[in-house]
């Protein structure tokens, strides 16, 4: 059968065999695009560096392009299809009204270089969400330039450096717990610091003595997620912050897990100085197959002067762009992932204070309920009650049956659920990090528990079956080694 044939055989609905790449649909001379004839007198320009060589792109008809991409879409799982308990990623439902906002022509078709007087609506959006985010985090001012959490981390570290330099100090170390997300150490290095990793204690939390031992004048600050990546609330947080503040270090809040505490407590209340939030997690903006997200950074009053600029400032009633006094400078080409920010504002206003608090309550309720329904094959390595997510270990299951966390994850796909996060955090062996989020119903949480328990049971009865899963998906366990040879 010709590869580029317009049949739907790659759609799982009618077979799910692989879909060829666009090249298979490409025929010299085919095209989808059309443009008006040039309506100005054509000039001979002989530009330097010009080319007459046709750019190498596939030549496809619009009809074939549409079918190709639509079939590929059918080969992809998504929140809109079912529960997606991918720990640390907060894959909650993305409200359609926020899509509507992001497609609003008044914002979608706005050029970022247009002066403030012509884009006041956009500045109002940023200023309005800044107020809400600061109230939720207990901070004073915020920047919305960072396009994702990791970019927020870099921004925060630069602010940390600027703060110390303003006191003509040059500490070289930033402390992170061994349970930290990979972006934390990576950001520390790229931020020009050395990452000092300290071990978690047997409660899965920062070991306060180890911390005390590690802290000295050379410590610029600490990066922490709270609830931490084990889904546990760091109960010593006030003390931890104090230890850092005692050497005039700054405490950075990695907001990936902010969902668990909305309206309950604030990083500001815990002693944090700098906070990034992942709008694509806590505030329901869609993850787009990997992005875009948004990682705004909020800071306490005395750090506001270091924020990246420009930021909106109200001058007799009207918002204008202004550069903070001792700004670290720009961290995004324009105003950050603005349409993502607009989605988040839409979400915040829809929920309001009550709704945001409800998010925290029900995300924790769902996680705690799920945890309580799991069989003993899934060990919970730490005693404290979990917050919005928990990390279970399949280590015992592996010892008993040879079935690993990865096998459990793959088997879950056959049950119609996306897999949890696997093998993170590193402090837990055979880790399965499960985050149901508040938008899943109790019935869904129960079904997820049942699926996991059935998989564990199957692991005892027929480990090979579980180890060779998934069995119902169009492809199964692609070869990573081979892939590395054709990037």
């Amino acid at each position, binding site marked *: 059968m010709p590869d580029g044939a317009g049949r739907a055989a790659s759609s799982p609905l009618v077979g799910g065999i692989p879909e060829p790449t666009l090249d298979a649909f490409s025929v010299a001379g085919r095209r989808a695009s059309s443009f008006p004839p040039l309506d100005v007198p054509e000039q001979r320009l002989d530009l330097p560096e010009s080319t007459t060589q046709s750019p190498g*792109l596939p030549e496809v008809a*619009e009809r074939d392009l549409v079918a190709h991409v639509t079939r590929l879409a059918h080969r992809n799982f998504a*929140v809109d299809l079912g529960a997606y308990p991918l720990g640390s990623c907060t894959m909650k439902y993305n409200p359609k009204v926020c899509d509507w906002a992001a497609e609003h022509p008044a914002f979608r*078709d706005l050029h970022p270089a247009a002066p403030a007087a012509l884009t006041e609506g956009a500045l109002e959006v940023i200023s309005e969400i800044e107020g809400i985010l600061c109230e939720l985090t207990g901070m004073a001012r915020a920047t919305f330039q960072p396009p994702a959490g990791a970019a927020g981390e870099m921004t925060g570290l630069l602010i940390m450096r600027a703060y110390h330099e303003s006191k003509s100090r040059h500490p070289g170390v930033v402390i992170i717990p061994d349970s930290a997300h990979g972006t934390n150490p990576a950001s520390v290095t790229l931020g020009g610091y050395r990452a000092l990793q300290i071990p978690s204690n047997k409660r899965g939390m920062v070991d306060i003595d180890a911390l005390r031992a590690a802290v000295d004048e050379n410590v610029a600050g600490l990066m922490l997620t709270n609830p931490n990546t084990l889904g546990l609330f760091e109960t010593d947080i006030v003390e931890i912050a104090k230890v850092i503040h005692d050497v005039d270090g700054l405490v950075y809040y990695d907001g990936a897990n902010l969902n668990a505490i909305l309206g309950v*407590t604030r990083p500001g*209340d815990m002693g944090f100085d700098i906070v990034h939030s992942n709008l694509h997690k806590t505030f329901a903006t869609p993850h787009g197959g990997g992005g875009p997200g948004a990682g705004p950074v909020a800071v306490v009053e005395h750090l506001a002067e270091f924020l990246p600029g420009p930021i909106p400032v109200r001058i007799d009633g009207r918002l204008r762009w202004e550069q903070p006094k001792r700004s670290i400078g720009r961290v995004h*080409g324009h105003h950050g992932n603005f349409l993502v920010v607009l989605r988040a504002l839409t979400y915040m206003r829809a929920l309001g204070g009550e709704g945001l608090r409800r998010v925290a*309550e029900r995300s924790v309720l769902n996680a705690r309920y799920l945890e309580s329904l799991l069989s003993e094959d899934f060990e919970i390595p730490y005693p404290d009650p979990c917050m919005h997510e928990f990390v279970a270990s399949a280590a015992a299951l592996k010892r008993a049956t040879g079935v690993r966390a990865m096998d459990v994850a793959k088997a879950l796909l056959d049950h119609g659920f996306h897999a949890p996060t696997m093998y993170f955090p590193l402090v837990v062996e055979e880790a399965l990090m499960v985050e149901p989020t508040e938008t899943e*119903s109790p019935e869904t949480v129960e079904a997820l528990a049942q699926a996991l328990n059935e998989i564990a049971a199957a692991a005892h009865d027929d480990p090979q079956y579980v180890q060779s899963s998934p069995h119902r998906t169009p492809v199964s366990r692609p070869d990573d080694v081979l892939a590395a040879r054709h*990037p």
Partner: protein
Amino acid sequence: MDFTPHTADDVARMLNHLGLSEPDDLFSHLPDAVRPKTSFDLPEPLSELEVMSHIDGLGRLNRSDLICFAGGGIYDHHLPPVVRSLTMRPEFVTSYTPYQSEVSQGVLQMLFEYQSMVATLTGLPVANASLYDGPSSGLEAVNLAVAEKGRPVVWISRGVHPHTRQIIVTFAHARGIDVVEHPLVEGRTTWSVEGAPEPAALIIAQPNYLGVIEDYGAVRALADSHDALAIAEIDPMLLGVLRSPGNAGFDVAFAEGQPYGNPMSFGGPVLGVFAVAGDLLRKLPGRLVGETLDTEARTAYTLTLRAREQDIRREKASSNICTNQSLNAVAAAVHLAWLGPQGLAEVGHQSVQKAHYLADELRRLPEVELAADAAFAREFALRTPADPEVVVTKMAERGYLAGIPISGDYPEYRGGLLVAVTEKRTRAELDGYSAAMQEVLADA
């Protein structure tokens, strides 16, 4: 609005199962010290109708209706409806990084095809699955060069986008990287080599921020003589009319990818296009999708060379990027496939032709000239007797977004207004722009 499915009974039943009596009990293990005593000062919940009218109201404060002559990386090209309808499919929009390839072949294959198209267009063998935006891609290029050459110095042309240079400076400071800027003379980069520390890379923009076309060969040669990488920030929509950086022997190309499939979006979300020469593969920042086979020898796609990334390599990662701009890359792939080779060439050709037509018309106006009298592509810096900020304001009253005042970033080009033209502008709009400019300058 409330997007949690739980009824009051559900909550009671679940709490009861957990041996708790009220929601706040879920947080009883939190130390009192962190529980705020006062209630949060947050807005009331809104119904969908109210939320929508609130957003509508804010939207009315914007002038997105102006006929757009602003550019600087973000351009008002024709965005075919097919791009939005395919890109906005929920399977792409509401999924995340394709860690589970079995149920992520859609996103994986779209990103693989995006990478292939970018690689072909740039003439460089490897492209990643997107970075945040053009300017921050410049920073990644600097990090890559410094790591590759082990020299904490880069030479950068003042023709590189001001925001790109600002971001590089912002971060370079933290990493102790020395960023040596080289001036524009007559609109083109001139390298003042004397006494400058040995660079890991030379970075230019093609065309540069003033729209002027730089000399690829000269940069490549100079870079070679310093054993440095040659890096270009390019206008992706011109790859049908200007030769590719790969063709010019450059090592790294990056671009603001917005014109590929994305609306102007007030500058974000857009995407950073990033491609490198083969020998730099293992220093490549960001996600990379590879083609492979599954257990039954079926073609499949999966994330590859993960060892470069933060979640594996942690403090030794080539970059800290995690969430990227995948959906924008999907849009780019769809748009490029829709354009095809003829389409991309035509967009470039018409943009260039219309830009020159407009420039010629404007030059006829009294005391109006081009700030830099050099060969340009689709964008040019105009110098008028009036204050460009005032010109922009007065042109807006006449329905045009006139361009970007550049005096702030380029004091040496005082009074400069950067004007961009796309294939979308009709002759009527171009003539209307000239006429309006004539009026504005007349009563200035």
